[in-house]
């Protein structure tokens, strides 16, 4: 792989890690704060604000995932794990670590 391609790959992985963290944090805020506020304190506004914010973060994460995977070099198992982990709270942080390891391997290979 040429160095410019590797640099591009690393940049894509950095963006993907950010998208993963954003998706993870917004899901935790939605499930851990906004939903209890709605059901136990009657503050429905909490979910009506956090719902769309998490929606955008979720779309961005999956859009990034499709983009990075269609660029090539990803095993089917890795992609499945990235999808499943994004659907559960804290799963995004597992994804972020996996992406960081992949990024570190790429940097080492340069």
């Amino acid at each position: 792989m040429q160095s410019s391609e590797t640099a591009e790959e690393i940049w894509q992985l950095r963006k993907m890690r950010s998208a993963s963290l954003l998706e993870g944090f917004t899901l935790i805020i939605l499930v851990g704060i906004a939903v209890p506020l709605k059901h136990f304190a009657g503050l429905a506004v909490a979910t009506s604000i956090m719902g769309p914010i998490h929606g955008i973060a979720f779309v961005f994460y999956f859009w990034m995932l499709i983009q990075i995977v269609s660029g090539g070099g990803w095993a089917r198992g890795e992609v499945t794990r990235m999808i499943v982990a994004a659907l559960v709270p804290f799963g995004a942080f597992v994804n972020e670590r996996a992406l960081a390891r992949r990024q570190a391997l790429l940097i080492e290979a340069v």
Partner: protein
Amino acid sequence: MVYLWLKAFHVVAAITWIGGMLAAAVVIAAATRNGPQRQSDGPSAFITSMRRWDQRVTSVAMLLTWALGLALALLGGWFPDVWLIVKLGVVLLLSALHGWLSGRLRRLHQQNSTRMPPSLRCIPFAVILAVSVVAILVVTKPV
């Protein structure tokens, strides 16, 4: 008044997004049809520009379309309506397709070639079909 301003910018963002997607789809289909170039040739200036446009304009327009669209749905109180749920599904598919096109464009830029089944050359038409469904749903709001 805020609703109308959001709606105007939502339409601008959507047109920019879909225009960029169509351009990327046509470029990828043309590159596939013309066959791979020699690796030593490097990416053409056209592919480089197309890719830059996709990253800096089309992708941003997609995110703006989503953000403004969700704001409009909340302000307008459209959320439980069936037409909106169906529209969201179609827009989700369009977003996925855009992600795939961006990835293919990156591959085309890096490798000067991309293998694509001939049947996928009809992607520009699929984009137009999806946009037609969205437009009809938004304008007529059937259910």
